[in-house]
């Protein structure tokens, strides 16, 4: 078996045997569906939703992606500013750490009261959940710029801004993408929290509403879809990294 094939066959085989074992066990032990639905129950539970499952998935995806973009727009510049200006860093860093320390689930209902029950609130919740890893990694990358590169920029006569744009920011790319990888998976969690407290559609909303009606297989189906979204988005960030900033992966491996 070729190494590439192994990388697919081994995990998929394990996963399928796990599902099969789960199915057989729940049938043999006759576990009640409301306690632990079997894989087939979950599949049927998802099917019951029909086309609604697609529209709700898209709704959640929209929340995740818009929130993630907001977090990038906030997090990356903030990481840059914090890393290059000591005064600003000392001024706002503690505040940001504090903001990040607030349990997002606890503050979500309060945000609904403040900002209302529309998309804005959901985006704020997602952004708050996932901007921190993006910001911290950006700042770490900016500060990790090799000293010689900074000397090069300085001797070449680069202004402070020129130094940031021509050397620091590009050299922080691998770090920024680490932040984005963490951020995008956390954004999924943020979107679910947002939909728990404030939504009438979306997968998070379906999870709460189905659970309230004891439609556990349906709720579990939504959870499975959320997990799949999370994996797909993670891989999408990886793909973007490889496709547009391939040099930053190759140099790491080459050194």
């Amino acid at each position: 078996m070729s190494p590439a094939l192994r990388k697919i066959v081994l995990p998929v085989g394990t996963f399928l045997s796990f599902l099969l074992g789960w199915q057989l066990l729940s049938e043999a032990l006759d576990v009640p569906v409301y306690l632990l639905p079997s894989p087939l129950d979950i599949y049927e539970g998802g099917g019951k939703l029909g086309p609604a499952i697609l529209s709700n998935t898209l709704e959640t995806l929209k929340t995740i992606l818009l929130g993630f973009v907001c977090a990038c727009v906030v997090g990356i510049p903030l990481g840059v500013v914090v890393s290059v200006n000591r005064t600003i860093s000392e001024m706002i860093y503690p505040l940001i750490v504090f903001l990040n320390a607030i349990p997002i689930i606890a503050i979500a209902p309060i945000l609904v009261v403040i900002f209302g029950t529309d998309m804005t609130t959901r985006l704020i919740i997602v952004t708050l959940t996932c901007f921190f890893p993006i910001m911290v990694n950006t700042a770490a990358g900016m500060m990790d710029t090799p000293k010689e590169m900074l000397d090069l920029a300085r001797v070449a006569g680069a202004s402070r801004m020129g130094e940031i744009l021509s050397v620091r920011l590009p050299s922080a790319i691998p770090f920024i993408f680490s932040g984005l990888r963490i951020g995008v998976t956390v954004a999924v969690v943020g979107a679910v929290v947002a939909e728990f407290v404030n939504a009438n559609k979306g997968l998070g909303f379906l999870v709460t509403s189905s659970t309230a009606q004891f439609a556990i297989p349906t709720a579990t189906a939504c959870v499975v879809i959320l997990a799949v979204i999370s994996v797909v988005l993670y891989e999408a960030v990886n793909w973007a990294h490889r496709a547009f900033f391939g040099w930053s992966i190759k140099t790491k491996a080459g050194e």
Partner: protein
Amino acid sequence: MIHATPAREAHSKPETRPDFGMQGREGAGTARREPIIELAHAGVTFATAKGDPLVAVEDMNLTIYREEIVSLVGPSGCGKSTVLRMLAGLQQPTSGDIWIGGGKTQRGFSEVALVFQRPTLLPWLSVMDNVLYPVKVLQRPTKAHRSRAMELLELVGLQDMADRMPHELSGGMQQRASIARSLILDPKILLMDEPFGALDALTREDLQLDLLDIHAETRKTILLVTHSINEAVLLSDRVAVMSARPGRMQDLVEIDVPKPRGAESGARPDFLALSQRIRDDIFGPRLSRKGRRA
């Protein structure tokens, strides 16, 4: 004191420039000795966290003339690199003066260009764009800049690599590219900080000879920091030997090995004698005595 050329007398502040026993005024091979760099009692003292100031360089006096290659050698920690950083403008002298001549002060790599121990190519730029980087910092590169970059890549033997990314090049090729980058804005002075120190021995010899060729072609004034006495003697017109803690000038050795030099120069008796003199300067008679006994 021993001698003074007209160029030296014409200089603005002759009292501040003591002489350092320069021997043999013809050896450097430069017909007109026009000073281009001058360090007068230059020193750098760092404040440390513990409170005791660290004297990195003390009372450094050195005049470098146009078109010559001068090497700085000395034990590690003698402040060679600090001297280089002073001239590059990365470190202000805390005492004394530095003067860089050659007409009006230029910006960036047109004034002094720096070659580092590691190639320090920017991994997100192609080889061509790396060579153009010092231009881009100051302005948008013109067609003339691009053809100049291509010429320089030819000079260092990388004309076929212009569109490659740095990680596709070997270490030696990367260092060649960084030398091409240093020359893009036709700097007055080329500062090289152990430029071949990170290369394997064979590549190193190859690049040393290439540097001699490049110098023959471009006539750049080069100040080179090196750990290798052999490299210093092979490449230089003069070798400045520094002593450690505090870093200061110890000796200035005129290298009168005839040019053009090549790999075979290393076997000449005068080459070996000069190497031995520098070695004695650095290690003192102690090691020589041990060596004789063994």
